[in-house]
């Protein structure tokens, strides 16, 4: 099962307000281009997730962006029996995916029912255009 939306409601959009949210802009630009981008400290190689302007390990402000493989495992999940926002049709699940590179990101599953979810399930990324102006990285069962 895939998350279904109520067509007359606006899905919450991430903010891409240019200078106001500069740190995370490359992540969302990447998603538009169907890639998961990860911020990496140029000085110590630490992966920064969520993106931020300084590396908490070495205080360097120099960083670069790498493309994640898009594979990982389910680390945890929540099933919403009541939708906390009118854009979503309950029930649906939000999953926490641990990427093979290490960082964990929140997403939804495609073609997996909430009751079939398991911690440790191998998953791979897929991109879904959920609205005219919004693409989201989602995951399907690997293989």
């Amino acid at each position: 099962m895939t998350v279904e939306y109520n067509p007359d409601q606006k899905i919450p959009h991430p903010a891409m307000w240019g200078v106001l949210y500069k740190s995370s802009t490359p992540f969302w630009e990447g998603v538009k281009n169907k890639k998961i981008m990860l911020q990496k400290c140029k000085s110590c190689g630490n992966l920064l997730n969520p993106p931020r302007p300084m590396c908490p390990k070495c205080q360097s402000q120099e960083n670069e962006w790498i493309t994640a493989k898009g594979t990982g495992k389910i680390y945890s999940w929540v099933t919403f029996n009541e939708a906390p926002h009118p854009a979503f049709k309950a029930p649906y699940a939000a999953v926490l995916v641990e990427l093979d590179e290490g960082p964990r990101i929140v997403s939804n599953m495609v073609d997996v029912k909430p009751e079939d979810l398991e911690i440790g399930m191998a998953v791979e990324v897929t991109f879904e255009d959920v609205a005219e102006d919004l693409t989201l990285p989602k995951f399907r069962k690997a293989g």
Partner: protein
Amino acid sequence: MAIESIKDKTAIVGIGVIDFSTNIGRSEWYSACQCIKLAADDAGLNIYDIDGMVKNIDDGPDPSYVQKGLGIDNLTYHSESHWGTSAMMNAVQGVASGSCNYCVYYQAAHRVSGPEKSISDYRVAREVKDDSLDMIRYDFFSPFGLIGQPGYVAMMYRRYMHETGITPEQLGWIPVVDSENAAKNPNAIFFDKPITIDDYMKSKVIADPIRELDCAPKVDGAIAIIVTTPEKAKSMKQKPVIISSNAAGMAPEGQFHTSYTRDVITELPEMKNMGDELFRIAGIGPKDIKLAMLDDTFTPYVPLQLEALGFCGKGEGAAFIEGGERIRVGGELPINPDGGLIGQGRFDTTRIVEAVRQIRGTSTNQVAGADTILVASGAGGPADGLILRKA
């Protein structure tokens, strides 16, 4: 000389609580003035002698408003704090550093009937003009429908179940014991009779695995707490409650209820940092605590707090609460004899008020020998706490 610690440098001398409700019919400004007047009466203090005010940032109008009702000529110390009861720390520092004589910590929040409710609900969904950079963190959750605190906590709770085997049948004892205690507290409006573990298991699962009864409901209320020095307290109306210790704690990669990027997400490292500091300042250990006022805004945090604060070992929190015997009044470590937030609604300062009453011996659900009490707040985010003792 600067001092080593705030141990025994301050005391709570007055508390003021208005009747909680789900539709209070008054402004928060009104309730703030009202509860401070009650606290001053309780302390036997002239309102005009109050010269310090602290509060939580979103709860109630700021000191300049409250002052217009109270008529105080000048405050020499005031500030705001973000979470839990961490404003208490500012009150303690203000008094201990000699910046003010009588500092009042007020929390006036009408979370059901007041207009703030709609603002914070909207904020999560980012539908209003809110340009705080804080909003950036929701960007990685909201588009996927992970919205609202019950969902954020459920993500951690599922992992907690997976790692330790904790079950809802165990966790359910928190609301069951809370409801037993709440039934004895006239200001705890959510239970007039205790519920059973069966009632809990039948409670609606809203964000699986979080049930409705795992979450503290919203409430309208107002509380004021007056802090001064133990010396000044001696000549006042009430027996002072000494602040043995007061601390706050944070930890790397922390976010409110969503610290998912940590190596282990099923611990409360902020709470551990805070607890270690609390015990260090007070010079005592978990074994010396007779009663714990813990943050039960969401039930999974209670066993995690027991672990973080050293009341039991890692992974033993679930067994500690199961059956309720050890956490009831009369048990090994009574928890929240006022009914907690599950029984009274989300109102963090109730924990301090109940601790004060227990030490005074005036609680409606008195714990025998409750002379040393730990108060913890801010589970799932920056934590803060107090150890209070009898003078």
